[in-house]
């Protein structure tokens, strides 16, 4: 088997046994990127030299007797997370040429564990989008079909993982930006509980919703990465002090829990079947739920009655927070500066030329929602709806352990198909937004293919800090089905 086809866990085993070196493994992936990324365009920046240097270091650490699950493993990073000395663009012209002078906490954690960073992956501008088409640089292609989008906003990360150009990657998820591209690319993507992973060094989009999450080729690999990046950080006051469980071991059900998924209660909400859904997606998710039942889970019909308000609430709250967060791009301290006739005009010209259409649209929307006279009717109303959405989940998780739904209403759409209609593009996230509003955790994993051989995603949601039970359900399902073993003919 070529090295790039190994799973993270398999690559680690070979490294540990000394059968390969990290330098060989890293070079194999860099070679693969050099050839295949011409078609896929997953990477904005490839840091080949730095990667080989880190691989050498990892090999030396292993020789010295050190061992971690990521020591010497090549990983990709969404280009919205800072690595000191490596450009961060956020997929935007306004940050073209920006080189951060500090690294994100997740990067420090990955480097301490000995991971090899291959480069920065494409994203919709400031993580706003569902296809990478809003990147100011280029559109990433779906490894399963080059005419289709990889999803977004972490589409570069998902395409790199599924295209065998990284063993795993980090993305960020504000309304589905890890799970939706994972579903479109046939990968596993985790949205951790809000506060589980430090946001320090993640460029802010909507601070009450943003969370960094791993994308990998199977549940165990994603769990390994989550275990490394999770944990309290004094530099992010919203990060949780709850102890980090062993997610890798947590993928397996504890001894005494019975066979398969015996005793696990899986909720299925009626609200997650909407008009316009692709029939094959509905069917695949029904089959997946039947599989969970065969594995011993108890399937319980539940209701999340405020689900339909998640999309309008999200598209007021997230833009409102974005309009405040993106006020910092004024051309004074970093980023693009377009000089106008005075300072006010300099701001206006800089921002108009630096931001693309979707970011401009959301800043406008957020500014509107926060405006005096409209605040109560829009922003405050959305925040109250957010409370009701949270309460739906609180009530549901008294009756069930996990909730199973489709990740997306359709499989990957064609490049250009939704670019003229922002509202239709927003609907690609209709099943993923609620989790961010409620701050709970969950993931997407492959559960089949449509008639065009495009991957379908199953979303499993768990309560706040319930990552382990979600991983157990996902891992058992994956072991029973093997969809994750399918790979694009690239």
């Amino acid at each position, binding site marked *: 088997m070529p090295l790039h086809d190994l799973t993270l866990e398999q690559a680690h085993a070979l490294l540990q046994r000394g059968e390969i070196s990290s330098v060989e493994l890293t070079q194999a992936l860099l070679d693969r990127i050099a050839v295949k990324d011409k078609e896929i365009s997953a990477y904005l920046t490839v840091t080949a030299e730095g990667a080989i240097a880190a691989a050498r270091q990892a090999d030396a650490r292993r020789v010295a007797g050190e061992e971690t699950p990521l020591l010497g493993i090549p990983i990709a990073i969404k280009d919205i997370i800072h690595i000191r000395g490596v450009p961060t663009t956020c997929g935007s012209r306004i940050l073209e040429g920006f080189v951060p002078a500090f690294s994100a906490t997740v990067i420090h954690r990955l480097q301490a564990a000995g991971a090899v960073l291959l480069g920065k992956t494409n994203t919709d501008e400031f993580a706003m989008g569902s296809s990478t088409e809003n990147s100011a640089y280029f559109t990433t292609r779906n490894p399963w079909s080059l005419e289709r989008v990889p999803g977004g906003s972490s589409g570069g990360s998902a395409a790199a993982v599924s295209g065998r150009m990284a063993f795993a990657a980090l993305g960020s998820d504000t309304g589905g930006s890890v799970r939706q591209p994972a579903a479109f690319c046939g990968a596993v993507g985790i949205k951790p509980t809000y506060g589980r992973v430090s946001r320090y060094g993640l460029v802010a989009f909507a601070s009450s919703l943003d969370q960094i999450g791993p994308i990998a080729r199977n549940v165990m690999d994603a769990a390994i990465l989550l275990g490394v990046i999770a944990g309290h950080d004094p530099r992010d006051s919203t990060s949780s002090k709850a102890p980090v469980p062993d997610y890798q071991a947590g993928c397996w059900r504890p001894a005494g829990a019975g066979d398969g998924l015996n005793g696990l209660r899986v909720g299925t909400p009626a609200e997650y079947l909407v008009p316009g859904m692709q029939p094959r997606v509905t069917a695949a998710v029904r089959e997946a739920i039947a599989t969970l039942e065969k594995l011993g889970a108890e399937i319980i019909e539940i209701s999340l009655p405020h689900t339909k308000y998640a999309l309008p609430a999200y598209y*007021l709250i997230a833009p409102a927070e974005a309009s405040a967060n993106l006020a910092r791009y004024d051309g*004074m301290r970093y980023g693009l500066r377009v000089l106008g006739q005075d300072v006010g005009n*300099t701001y206006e010209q800089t921002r108009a030329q630096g931001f693309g259409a979707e970011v*401009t*649209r959301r800043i406008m*929307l957020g500014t509107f929602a926060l405006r005096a006279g409209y605040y109560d009717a829009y922003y405050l109303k959305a925040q109250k709806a957010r409370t009701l959405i949270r309460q739906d989940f609180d009530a549901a998780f008294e009756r069930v352990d996990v909730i199973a739904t489709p990740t997306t209403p359709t499989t990957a759409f064609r490049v250009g198909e939704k670019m003229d209609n922002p509202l239709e593009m927003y609907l690609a996230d209709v099943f993923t937004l609620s989790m961010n509003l409620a701050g709970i955790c969950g993931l997407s994993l492959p559960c089949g293919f449509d008639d065009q051989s495009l991957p379908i995603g199953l979303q499993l949601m768990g309560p706040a800090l319930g990552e382990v039970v979600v991983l157990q359900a996902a891992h058992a399902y994956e072991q029973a089905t093997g969809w994750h073993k399918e790979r694009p003919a690239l």
Partner: protein
Amino acid sequence: MNLTLAEVAHIAGLARLALTEEEISLYREQLSAILQYAQLLQELDTEGIPPTALVSPTHCIMRPDEPQPSMSRDDLLSNAPATANGLFQVPLILDQR
């Protein structure tokens, strides 16, 4: 919710975005459609429901007020569009008179 061109131009001014007339016209159409969809929220009875601004259970984290090392001046200035004498150089903000 149907926005007028003047309202869109006003919002663009608040957000410090220099938009062309064509852009204002396009955003008027698109933002109106999105806000129309957001009207769905108005049918919700939210009487007595508190707003959720942040989901994490921890608020107002306090820490000891001890000096910590901060970024160096060179690092802080490394991405500046213009610098002078080790400072950010910005357009004139006050009249010189």
